[in-house]
């Protein structure tokens, strides 16, 4: 029978339980993606509205610009997360 020896100041490894991953409803990256998707769709609608003469040019262009900025931010965060994962995955054991 083995016992876990916990060094002073470090948490007992046996007590750490895996946390359930946050789903799209539980905040986290999924909900951010949904938000950005909403912004992108809104920009698309405004562009279509401009084509139909319902929306002003500046509104359509500025919404598209804002959507692009939000999308670039999400891509940046995704690249960061992926880089962190790969660094862990490539660790030599």
């Amino acid at each position, binding site marked *: 029978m083995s016992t876990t020896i916990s060094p002073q100041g470090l948490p007992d490894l046996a007590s750490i339980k895996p946390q359930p991953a946050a789903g799209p409803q539980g905040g986290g990256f999924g909900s951010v993606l949904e938000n950005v998707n909403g912004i992108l769709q809104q920009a698309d609608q405004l562009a279509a509205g401009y084509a139909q003469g319902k929306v002003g040019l500046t*509104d359509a262009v500025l919404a598209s610009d804002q959507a692009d900025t939000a999308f*670039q931010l999400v891509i*940046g965060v995704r690249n960061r997360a992926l880089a962190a994962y790969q660094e862990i995955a490539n660790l030599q054991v």
Partner: protein
Amino acid sequence: MSIENILGIAGSALDAQSERISIIAQNMANASSVQSPDGGPYQRRIPVFESTTVGDDSDQASGVTLAAVLRDQSPPKQTYDPSNPLADARGMVQEPTVNPVFEMVDLMEASRAYQANLSVVETAKNTAMRTIDILK
């Protein structure tokens, strides 16, 4: 004050300046309109801008909006042309007070103001993008 606010403020200014350009276009087009639906010659239109709240009320960001379009109340220009069917008993025809030189100067000013606000949008976008570039 966030990027969205900057875009909202600059966007309201872009809208206002393009309205102004369309009013100038209207004045130029009617520079020699001796008749109008209201009777008498065309009256030169003058845009009036007003500072207004943009976006969420909590942010108190001030954009600009076209508050009113006023009419030039100065008396119409009188031209002597007795052969004109619209001439009065003294042979004078009433013409609009629109001065094309005046309108061109106003047009240049409006166009420059539009460009200045476009620069604001561009700067806001560039700063946001460069901030995101920190992640790379």
